[in-house]
């Protein structure tokens, strides 16, 4: 068990080092960092001074280790567009993205599980067929189209919800939250649905498939033979066993939710990290791109590691077969 966790942790660190190398090479070799920082009429001597100051004349390995040490302390350099430390820019926008991603995931979990259970228990009902069709559309429609559709319906035609921004936010320490004001909550509704719809369909299909499988097992038949109520069987016995894979998938998907929030944030002009990243790609702001890559990777790798560890804790069968195939 401990050996397994240790091996996974070492793998995770390995991934982070690889990502660090990619981020560093982007920063160092994709375009000249000095050219991005100076204006056209900066003298050659001044450029050479900046180059020296940034340490770009040192051996590459020295530069890399310095970049890595800085990155480990969340120092990602200065943005080319904003002339501000990248870390500050990211920290300022982190709460918006995390709030959106968390709301979307919760929404996806609650509705995904409910709809999945319903369509597993009443497979031939009209409602289940409607859900099935919606899930196919949900998987086929690109995220941004769903967003546009929602905006047109609820902001343009009906005028119920705001079409962009976060509404009014409350500042608690360095964290800003939109959860405490009415306009903030209203602004959160459409982006959360847009972002969570794909995950919801995924969870719904997973719950349905798992439920159907579990309902066929012997212990459910035994529970029926014992005369338990259908409610106790479905929710106390069957659903509980389907939840392990569901939580795993939802956990692993949290990383992609953050990545996909790039699109949702652009559609709704949500002031989060994703919007910052898209603007960085548009303006070739390499320090922000590199830093975003590192941040998102860190979140991904941490979640993967936690899910792996939780899995071994929750499912004792995995402990005996610890040498998991890659």
């Amino acid at each position: 068990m401990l050996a397994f966790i240790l091996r996974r942790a070492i793998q995770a660190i390995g991934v982070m080092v690889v990502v660090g190398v990619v981020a560093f090479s982007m920063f160092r070799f994709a375009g000249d960092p000095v050219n991005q920082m100076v204006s056209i009429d900066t003298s050659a001597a001044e450029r050479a001074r900046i180059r020296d100051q940034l340490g770009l004349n040192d051996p590459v390995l020295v530069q890399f280790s310095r970049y890595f040490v800085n990155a480990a302390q969340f120092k990602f350099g200065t943005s080319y567009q904003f002339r501000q430390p990248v870390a500050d820019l990211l920290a300022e926008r982190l709460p918006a993205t995390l709030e959106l991603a968390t709301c979307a995931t919760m929404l996806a979990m609650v509705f995904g599980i409910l709809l999945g259970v319903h369509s597993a228990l009443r497979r031939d009902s009209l409602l289940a067929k409607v859900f099935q069709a919606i899930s196919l559309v949900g998987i086929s429609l690109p995220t941004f189209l769903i967003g546009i559709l929602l905006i047109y319906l609820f902001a343009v035609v009906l005028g119920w919800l705001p079409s962009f921004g976060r509404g009014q936010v409350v500042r608690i320490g360095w964290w800003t939250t939109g959860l405490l004001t009415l306009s903030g909550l209203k602004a959160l509704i459409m982006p959360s649905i847009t972002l969570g719809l794909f995950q919801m369909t995924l969870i719904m299909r997973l719950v349905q498939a798992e439920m159907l499988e579990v309902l066929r097992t012997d212990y459910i038949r035994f529970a029926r033979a014992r005369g338990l109520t259908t409610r106790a069987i479905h929710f106390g016995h069957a659903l509980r066993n389907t939840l392990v894979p569901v939580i795993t998938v939802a956990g692993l998907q949290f990383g992609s939710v953050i990545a996909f929030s790039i699109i949702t944030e652009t559609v709704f002009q949500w002031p989060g990290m994703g919007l910052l990243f898209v603007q960085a790609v548009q303006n070739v702001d390499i320090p922000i791109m590199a830093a975003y890559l590192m941040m998102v990777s860190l979140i991904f790798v941490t979640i993967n590691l936690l899910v792996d560890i939780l899995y071994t804790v929750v499912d004792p069968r995995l402990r005996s077969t610890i040498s998991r195939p890659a």
Partner: protein
Amino acid sequence: MSDAVVPRKAEAGAPRTGFQQPGWLRRAAASDLFYSFRRSKLTMLAAFVTLLFFLAAIFASVLAVQNPFDPAQLQLMNSRIPPLWTADGQSPYLLGTDEQGRDVLSAILYGLRISLAVGVLGVLLSGTIGIVLGLVAGYVGGAIDSLIMRIADVQLTFPAILIALLVNGVVKSVFGNRLDAMSMLGVLVIAIGLSFWVQYARTVRGSVLVEKNKDYVAAAQLIGLPAPVIMLRHVLPNAIGPVLVIATINLALAIITEATLSFLGVGLPDTMPSLGTLIRIGNNYLFSGEWWIVAFPGFALAALILSINLLGDWLREALNPKLR
């Protein structure tokens, strides 16, 4: 003696080359695949719609009433005309016109061409990268195998859209931000190619690991065929079924990815718009009531992706004997 046996063995295990033999049409019509195709009305509809989209893209210049990207053919007088069936519709503009007097239907036809081109080329590139790496990893094994598969593992952790965005940004910073439309198309194809190769590589590697211990491979090695020939001519055809399924589903994903990048403003420019670019442009007019500028490109994109996905679903079930 052994000369007579070995080639026959190789032939028995070798791919069915029925498509080159006479009468392949009849054989195809009698195949399981065609039977399951005929059985599903939804699949036939999806295939028909997909075919229609491809034909529309190919013959865009014939079908369109104007070339929407030739400024000489545009008249600002004709801007913002609503679709034909509304009260203010005007005759050649079936789906209305946009801010610059472009016919929306013509723009969709030309945009469809770009979207499909990027999608198909992206799938070809990612398929080639993935198949080659998968073959090499599975056939050669050892350190090369672990290296390729570790890279695949790491990349699989990240969603394709993020990788496509990063590739896009890096290429732009290397070649400068002012790329012309044609090179932007190339950048998108490369970004998509590098984002989607992993699934092919894993699938092909898996099949190769099974196939390479079979007798026909041993026979081919025995008669001294070079490894690349064995990989491409003998092993690959036996691993191609799942690759086709992935390619179909990835075509839809590639089109979505391209549309998303163009929508985010890092894809194709306004001078050579894909469906995604058209949706981004149209999105600006949503609030002023010109819904048709965004609605029809959006509908075209959704219909295209849905039909390709349905085809992919059918292919996956038809080629998987377990599900039959």
